[in-house]
Every structure is written in C-alpha cells, then in structure tokens.
C-alpha cells in the first residue's frame, strides 16, 4: 500500500542556509521557531541561466560585513552580500584570455577571513583553483569602480591530470589540492610552495593498482593543518597525516559508489561522508569505524555537506534537488526542502538568530540543544558501562551491590573516557 500520511519530520532549530544550484540561482532557506521549525525558501537571487551554474561558493560569516563569494561556470567570480544578495564586486577568472572558461572550470573557491596580500581594509581576498591546476590568490578592492589594481598571485599545482577540489585549513595558511590523476598535495599559501605530497597506496596482492582519483577532501581539525581526510572515486576514504607519512594512516571503503563529499565535525574526529548514490554516513576517523548512516529518502548523489558551527545539525544537498537537514546525535532527518534544481553547494549562515530581535524565545531551545549535545556526548561513553552492568547481572551478584559498583564503575569509566579523550587530544 502506498503511504497515505506524511512522515512527520520533527522540524529543525532556527537556522539560515544558502544553497547554490546548476541554474545559477542562490536560494536562502530559513527555519523559524514560530512556524514549527519548517525550513522555507525565503529569497531567491539571480535568474535561471545555465551558463551561470554555480561551481563553488564560500561564505565569510563574520558578524559585521559578511561576504559571500560565488564562482560561476562562465569563469566569473561574484562577491555578494549574504544578507540581501547585493552584488558588490565581479571578477573574471579568465586571465590572459587563452582558455575558454568551460575548458578550465573553477573547482575550488575560498574566501579568506584574514588579510593575506598587502591590501587596504576595504578588500577581500580569495583563492580559486581551476581544473587544470591554476591556483590564484587574489585580492579585490571593494570599491564601486572596477579597479585594475587587483593584487594576484598565480601558480600551478599540478603538472598533469585534473584538479577536482581545493580546500583551505582553519588558519588559512595552507591549502590542499587533489583530483583525477593528482595525489593530495599541500601548499603553503604564504610562500606558495608545495610542502607535502601523498604517495599512492601500493598495489594489492593481485598486483592491481587503482588509479588515483580524489574527489573531495577536508582538514580534520580547525587548528591543525596536518591531518587531512580525502575521499576517492574508488569509494575509499583516507586519512593522511602530513607529519607522519606520505601514505594514508587509515583508509577504509564506504559502500560502492564514489565518495562525493567529505566534511569534518567540530570535535575533530568525526567526519561525514556522502556518496554518489545518496548515502550519507558519519565515521569516527580515529578508528575508521562507521558510527551510523543517515537514513532517509535521499536517493541522489550528495554534492555537498555542511556542518552548522553551533547547532548539532548538518545539511546535505545534491542531485536529488533536496536540501536535507539532519540531527547529528540521532542521525534523524529533521526536515527537507525541495529546491527544484540540481544543487551544487550548501552553506550555513551562523549569525542568523542573532540579527533578528523577536527570536528571543529561540534562545531557550538553543540552550536545551547544547545540553542535549553534552548528554549525547555522555551517551557515547555509556555502552561500555551498560555492557559491564549486564555482564555483572549475568553473573548473579547481588543487585544492590552491583548497582553501587556500577555507579563507581560509571564514574571510573567517565574518568577513563575523559583521560582517553585527553590522550587523543594530545595525539592530535
């Protein structure tokens, strides 16, 4: 029998997200507590045009004067105001006019939060990378007149092959690149020098070598540039430690379709991976164990995953034209929005709940959620004690005493877990 009632989605906490799609539209999705946390499209910027297809986007969501950079298929980079969609600067990436923008599409874009090149305060700096490996670091004056005095640095990050991603670390001094036929390599952005390249894993026991094809990567930790997680087209996820070795520290398979998106969590050891057939899962990268899959109606390739910097929420989007918002702890679908186009990227706007006054009521659920987060953190440690409890009871020792023991055990285990965490933190 077909389903005749709607599956109830719990609704999500107040948030604001921006999605970018294949027709070059930017859609603003907001969820408000007043409307039961049902996210809705509140604004749409731009007109549908296939040449304007958004290839990469980056958001600098500082509290004052936030900026949004969008790279289009036509080789144009636009800097917008993420609050009202006003276009401030347009820069063409087609330098020297040799290659057509279609041949050398932009694959990566990062908008810097700090100033890198020598420039005035009213300017923004961004890093772009094209398929052929032309990485460009440029800063643009935010003046009304189109200025020619753009400071820019261009270098090539690969000799052969196609770059498919570029990623900049939390302190914005290093960047990784990789792609089809290009091993993951790390560059120092201040000096524009390559500091590290990965080495392909050896042939397997049958002498078969899987060709290199990286599809996505992310830095594992905000403060640490040394650990990089990369996903490959041959459905493998690899953890590289720059300080340790050139071959992957951990590598594991996930399902049978290429990994299309990798995103890190704030805790520094959980990552979220999305595959070409719409599977989304969270993995503890310390052990390489799957924590769980995000089950839902998701059936199209996942192109982008975003972690909300404050709420325990992630958003995923991709070819099935849905923006889905998931709870991290329960891995439950909170809500989904149908956005009609193939989506390429999603970003969260963190400052959303602050800039609106009448959402004071929202503060309470925020706190609850943060408490919830703490609890879930505790829950992750619980299974150990539970197991012990059951084993104790199996042995048939007196219940009271066992309970007391359990309490002590719990405390101990908590302590142990804390110490474990400390250790892991030290490791990292």
């Amino acid at each position: 029998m077909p389903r005749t009632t709607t599956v109830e989605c719990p609704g999500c906490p107040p948030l604001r997200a921006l999605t970018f799609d294949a027709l070059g539209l930017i859609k603003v999705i907001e969820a408000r507590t007043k409307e039961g946390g049902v996210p809705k499209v509140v604004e749409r910027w731009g007109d549908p045009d296939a040449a304007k297809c958004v290839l990469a986007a980056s958001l600098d969501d500082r509290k004052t004067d936030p900026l949004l950079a969008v790279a289009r298929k036509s080789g144009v980079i636009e800097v917008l105001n993420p609050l009202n969609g006003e276009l401030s600067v347009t820069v063409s990436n087609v330098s020297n006019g040799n290659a057509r923008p279609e041949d050398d599409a932009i694959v990566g874009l990062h908008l810097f939060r700090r100033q890198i090149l020598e420039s005035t305060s009213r300017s923004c700096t961004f890093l772009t990378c094209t398929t052929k490996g032309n990485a460009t670091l440029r800063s643009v004056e935010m003046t009304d007149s189109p200025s020619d005095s753009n400071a820019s640095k261009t270098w090539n990050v690969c000799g052969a092959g196609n770059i498919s991603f570029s990623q900049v670390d939390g302190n914005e001094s290093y960047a990784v690149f990789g792609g089809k036929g290009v091993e993951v390599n790390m560059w120092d952005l201040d000096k524009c020098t390559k500091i590290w390249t990965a080495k392909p894993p050896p042939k397997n026991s049958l002498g078969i070598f899987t060709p290199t094809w990286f599809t996505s990567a992310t830095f594992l930790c905000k403060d640490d540039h040394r650990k990089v997680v990369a996903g490959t087209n041959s459905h493998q996820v690899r953890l590289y430690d720059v300080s340790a070795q050139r071959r992957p520290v951990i590598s594991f398979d996930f399902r049978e379709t290429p990994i299309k998106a990798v995103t890190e969590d704030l805790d520094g050891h959980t990552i979220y991976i999305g595959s070409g057939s719409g599977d989304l899962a969270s993995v503890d990268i310390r052990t390489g164990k799957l924590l769980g899959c995000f089950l839902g109606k998701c059936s199209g390739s996942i192109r982008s995953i975003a972690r909300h910097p404050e709420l325990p929420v992630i958003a995923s989007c991709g070819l099935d034209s849905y923006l889905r918002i998931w709870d991290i702890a329960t891995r439950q679908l909170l809500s989904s929005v149908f956005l009609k186009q193939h989506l390429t990227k999603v970003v969260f706007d963190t400052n959303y709940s602050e800039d609106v006054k009448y959402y004071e009521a929202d503060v309470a659920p925020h706190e609850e959620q943060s408490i919830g987060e703490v609890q879930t953190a505790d829950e992750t440690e619980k299974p150990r004690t539970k197991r012990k409890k059951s084993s104790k009871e199996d042995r048939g020792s007196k219940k009271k005493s066992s309970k007391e023991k359990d309490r002590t055990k719990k405390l101990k285990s908590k302590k142990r877990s804390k110490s474990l965490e400390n250790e892991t933190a030290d490791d990292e």
Partner: protein
Amino acid sequence: MGGKRKKSENEGAGEDDSSNKSASKKMKTKKSEILPSSIKNKEKRSAVHSKLKHQKKVEKRKKLKVRDAAEKRAVELGEEPLPRQIPRTIENTREADETVCMPDDEELFAGNDVDEFSSIIKRDRTPKILITTSRFNSTRGPAFISELLSVIPNAQYYKRGTYDLKKIVEYANNKDFTSIIVVHTNRREPDALLFVCLPDGPTAHFKLSSLVLRKDIKNHGNPTSHEPELVLNNFTTRLGHRIGRLFQSIFPQEPNFRGRRVVTFHNQRDFIFFRHHRYIFDAKEIKQSEAKGKKAKDAKGESIAKEKVVARLQECGPRFTLKLISLQHGTFDTKGGEYEWVHKAHYSHYSSSSPFLNVSLKWTPAEEDFSCNLIHGFICFTPGMQRFSAEEGQYWQ
C-alpha cells in the same frame, strides 16, 4: 460445530416445550453471530458463508434503493440531494508530493530549456538511435529488437560483439547518434532496458517485465513506417517529467498523423506501460434498439440508419512494462557514476509503492493545461484529433 452444539443443547434443555422454544430462539441469535470461519465442517461453513454473503448483498441493494428513492424525491421536491459519499481509494488518499511539476513554475521551464534533451525537443537535432544488446542474446531478444526497430523510427541495430559499453558510447558519439538502447537478456528473456542519452547523459536503467511480442497478441496489426504519435501519461513529478522527456527524445518530434499510429507510455504507480496501437475512425450504424429507446415512434418512421463515428484501436505490439531502477547523471559509468535517483527499497519508513514518477492521478483542469503544455504526447495527440475532427466531422460525442 453450530449443529453439534444445537443438538447437545436440545438434549440438555429438557422436556419443557416453552423452554425449548426459547432456547432455539436464543440459538438463532447466536447462530447469526457465529463466524463461518469457526465452523469446522466445510459444507456447513460454505453454506453459512454464502448465506451471510447473500444477506449482505440484499442489504446493500436495499440501502441503494432507499438512497436512490430519497434522491429522486429530493429532486422532485426541488431540494438539493444529499451529497454522495466519496470512496477512499489508494489514489485519493495519497500523500501530497511537493515535487509535482506545476504549470506556473518558471524554474521548471528554464531548466527544461537547458537540459540534455532540449536540443532534440527543440528540433535542432533529429533523433538517431543505436540499439544493441547485452553480450549474450537469443530467442526472444532478437525478436524483441526487431519489433523495437519497427516502433522507433531512425533506429539501427548493431551487434554487441565483445565491446565495452563505454566504447560503444564513444563510437555512437562520433557517429552522431542521439541515444543508445541496450536490451539486456537474462535466461533467454529480455529483462532490462538501458537508455543512454548522448552526448552527456543521463542514463536510465529500467527493469523490463511482462513482455508480449506482436505475434502473441491476438488480432494484432502490422505497423506502417509512418512516424508515430506519442502519448505520455502521468509523468507528473519532477523525476517523472525528466523520464518523460527522455522517452520523448527518442521519437521524432513531428509525428505523421496520417499514419494513425500511436505509442503510449502510461505511468501508473511507477510502472510504465508501453503500448503501440493503430487507431481508426469508423462510421458505424446506430443500433435500432438504441434509437428506439431515445426517440420511440419518430425514429421508427425514419428507418434510415444513422451513422455514428467510433474510434477503434488495434494493438500492434510489442507490449511491455518498465520500472525505473536508476537514473544516472552523465553517460554509462557504473563505477564512478553519480546517480540522480536510485531506487532504494530497503528503507524502512519509505513505502516501496509510494510513487516517484507520478503522484496524483486526479485530472484537474490546471493539470490538464499543464500536460498540454509540457507533455509531448498531448501536443501530438490532441492536434491530431483536432485535425481529424476538422476533416471528417465530429467524433467525440
């Protein structure tokens, strides 16, 4: 069982007649409550069951009679009759779907203008189809392919040989083919169809079932070489719309209405039924009895037979059912392919029969307009009808 109990109770009731009667009365009421399924004797059970069924039927008839009488009376009195109850069906209790295409959606049209099929649908390219098979192919496979060749104009069959499908895609791209159809055969029976749109996708993989070839259809017709009209029914959701456009891009965009040949893709709960017909508008005498009923004696006076035009269908075959398994972004690539949609039946809170391609079968006027605008079939089919009606009088009455 009932019988047995009756006996035992009769014995236990004693000699008093009145008490016996009351007991039997009680028994009657009890008997009606006994479910036939609790009776062990088969004959008895079926008898009780048929009796119950008959009772229900009679009751229902009575109810209808009462309702009809009430309605009639209300009409006579000039009152508004009670509204009839609408039965709850699978279709009208279905969950609403937000992905259903709407005629006022400008994004949809903008998306259509730039999608992979637009160059064919805008008649910039003429469809040219390459049909090939899986590696092994025998019995019904070749027969099916020869019939497909007769259905799809401008299609060519190429032997598969030992080529990789990716190589075939490359070859077909060089030869300016617009799509590839691969008929996959398993156990000497075609069981899957793969549509690859060229040059850059998408790739749709269908399960093929209940295939009936032309020679197995009773009173089948033989199709002419005219370009067929296309009817696409119920491709209403966004995914369905895309699949509909995929089918549309396989057939020539300007059908030859003189051929009176029509190919139908009818979607019902995600199963796509393929049919191929010839139609004809026949002049038929109106039966005397009908005329009698309508006009009584006057009709008798004019004994000249009146002619009525009837559309008749003749099936040409083949006949088969498709079910979408996956829709892949780009051309065929199983290992590194990105899917736009994959059927995932194992998800628990996701009913396997909740549809993806179409949702509402209710035909609202808005939707009808929309289908005229969007679904190619109605562009082809309705003008055809109109043309015929203009030439040869009115048919649809």
